């Protein structure tokens, strides 16, 4: 991956916000965080014609695609954005999580909360199985292997019996009620809050992780794997961890998704899902959590908002991706903060 030249656009949301954030006190930061989180929790009640979706139920759009995309994009960001492992088969983990809940919930009556954990465990196990041999490879070879893995999981789900074959599985149990909130088929709001809570937990864990050894190791591997290895970083170990943790988040997302839609078919888990989530990561700004979350929310939101264009919306969506990448190749909120450059003579800040 070329790191020599990174073009930085003049207007930079990250810089503007970064400058403001540095000047705040501890209390201001806590208030800001609480307000932001509260805003996201009451978002389903804020359905209005301006930013709500007029043609489809706003709270169900908030759950899928928006919430789901954000959660999965954050997971994939650990793999692609942080560690530089191009994974084109992320949907496989999503499918494993979804089928774990569907099969264990239907056949053995396992509780949803148990299944989320098991789904994550199975996804991690699959990640180890694929990752141990595959992560020795790099770049496009790794990409094509992961792409193949995603397709294999889908085709196996079509061709074996315990997944219900091409017809899939129906009547997947909903989560049991928690804190008096019932999970009902016709009300997507509890599911949105569930995804939001999971996302916040993941963000919290992610923020702690990237400030410590694993995060620094991942960044070193992304920038130059050979140098990282010379510096004594166990590259294969950390790459495997990134792959497996990203997979676990995908698996958890899959279990939640299956519990909401109540019926799943293998065709839901095709290559387009992997590509869509990858697009979210790159569109938002690879390696920058907030950019990725914002980009995923936007990419989930646009096709629904553009529903008035009805059939042609994916057409405009494709066009938007091309134009967007041409204008801001590092994503909406880039990873790199613009370095401040000071003029030698005057000592004033100058733009590059």
């Amino acid at each position, binding site marked *: *991956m*070329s790191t*020599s*030249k*990174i*073009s930085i656009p003049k207007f930079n949301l990250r810089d503007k916000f970064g400058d403001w954030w540095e000047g705040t006190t501890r209390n201001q930061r806590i208030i800001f965080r609480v307000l932001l989180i509260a805003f996201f929790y009451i978002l389903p009640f804020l359905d209005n014609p301006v930013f709500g979706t007029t043609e489809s139920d706003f709270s169900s759009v908030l759950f899928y695609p928006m919430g789901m995309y954000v959660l999965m994009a954050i997971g994939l960001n650990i793999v*692609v954005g942080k560690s530089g492992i*191009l994974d084109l088969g992320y949907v496989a983990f999503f499918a494993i999580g979804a089928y774990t809940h569907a099969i264990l919930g239907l056949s053995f009556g396992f509780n949803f909360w148990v299944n989320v954990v098991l789904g994550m465990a199975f996804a991690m196990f699959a990640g180890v199985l694929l990752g141990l*041999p*595959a992560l*020795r*490879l*790099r*770049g*496009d*070879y790794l*990409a*094509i*292997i992961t*792409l*193949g*893995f995603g*397709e*294999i999981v889908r*085709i*196996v789900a*079509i*061709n074996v019996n315990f997944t219900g074959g091409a017809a899939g599985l129906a009547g997947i149990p909903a989560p049991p009620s928690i804190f008096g909130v019932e999970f009902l088929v016709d009300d997507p709001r509890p599911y949105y809050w569930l995804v939001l809570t999971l996302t916040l937990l993941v963000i919290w864990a992610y923020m702690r992780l990237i400030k410590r050894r694993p995060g620094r190791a991942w960044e070193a591997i992304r920038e130059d*794997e050979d140098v990282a290895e010379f510096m004594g970083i166990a590259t294969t170990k950390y790459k495997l961890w990134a792959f497996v943790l990203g997979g676990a988040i995908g698996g958890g997302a899959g279990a939640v998704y299956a519990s909401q839609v109540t019926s799943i078919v293998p065709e839901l888990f095709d*290559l387009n899902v992997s*590509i869509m989530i*990858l*697009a979210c990561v*790159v*569109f938002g700004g*690879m390696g920058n959590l907030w950019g990725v979350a914002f980009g995923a929310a936007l990419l989930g939101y646009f096709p629904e908002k553009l529903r008035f264009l009805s*059939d*042609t919306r*994916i*057409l405009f*969506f*494709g*066009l*938007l*991706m*091309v134009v*967007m*990448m*041409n204008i801001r*190749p*590092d*994503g909406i909120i880039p990873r790199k903060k613009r370095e401040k450059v000071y003029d030698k003579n005057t000592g004033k800040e100058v733009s590059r």
Partner: protein
Amino acid sequence: MDFSIVVSEFASLFLDGIVVGAIYALVALGYTLVYGVLRLINFAHSEIFMLGTFACLGVTMLLGYTGYEEPIGIGLFLVTFILITVVAAVASGSAAMLLEVVAYRRLRRKGANRLSSLISAIGASFFLVELFRLLTDSKDWDFPRLLDKNSLFEVSSAYVTADKLVVLIGAFGLMFALDRIIQGTRLGRGIRAVSQDEKTAVLMGVDVDKVIAFTFLLGGVLAGVASAFYMLFYEATKFNVGFLLGISAFTAAVLGGIGNIRGALAGSFALGLIQQFSSAILGYNWRDVVTFLILVLVLLFKPTGLFGEAIQRARV
């Protein structure tokens, strides 16, 4: 699991494998050429192929074929088919060049991240698929039967038909021509120079923009011709026809060592044969699983593909 079919139908499976492999090869060459000069997977290449199949269909419609008439004689067929091939090649070739200008050129000049170009190409791919889904009404479109598909002669269990012969002769002719272009012309030398080292090529006076545009044109023309052969052999298309064929052709390119032209040919024929034999043994459903499993095994034990250069360490 039925291994006896491999013995009894060996010649037939072998012939079909070679024919399918020849079509894969023409598409795989497009992937491998672009990878050679740009170190990028051209994700929209399968859509260039799809566009070609509809160009073929368009020509037959303009010529007034409805799909119900008798197959035409060999002389008239050759004229018609050459016309179809040329139109498809022009359509796909110009689309590929346009794609390079719209989706790649600006990003390349900015020195942007490789993944940004990938997303840009994916966007272009979405756009083309959706455009054709809307234009063609999401329907399956049948290509008229231009050539009598009765067996000309038999070799063991294989029925050699005229369409398979046309595909084989045409594809091999084109591969030979491509080899001459790459090895013997100025632009071909430019392609090889840029593939080896872009910066040095610039210093040696190679016009990189021109070479890259020419590479996309070559890849597009090959995909256009492949689409004409595909239509002759399979006689049907749909807006999403590019997806599975693109994955197979790309797999073939990787199998042979991506960036390596002769490797792509070998990989394509190997993949065509593997797919035919594995579908005969395990059933058609498992074809793609087998394809990918073999790909994974090859990459693990011979990561540079069958004939690849050691690019995976050099270019990450």
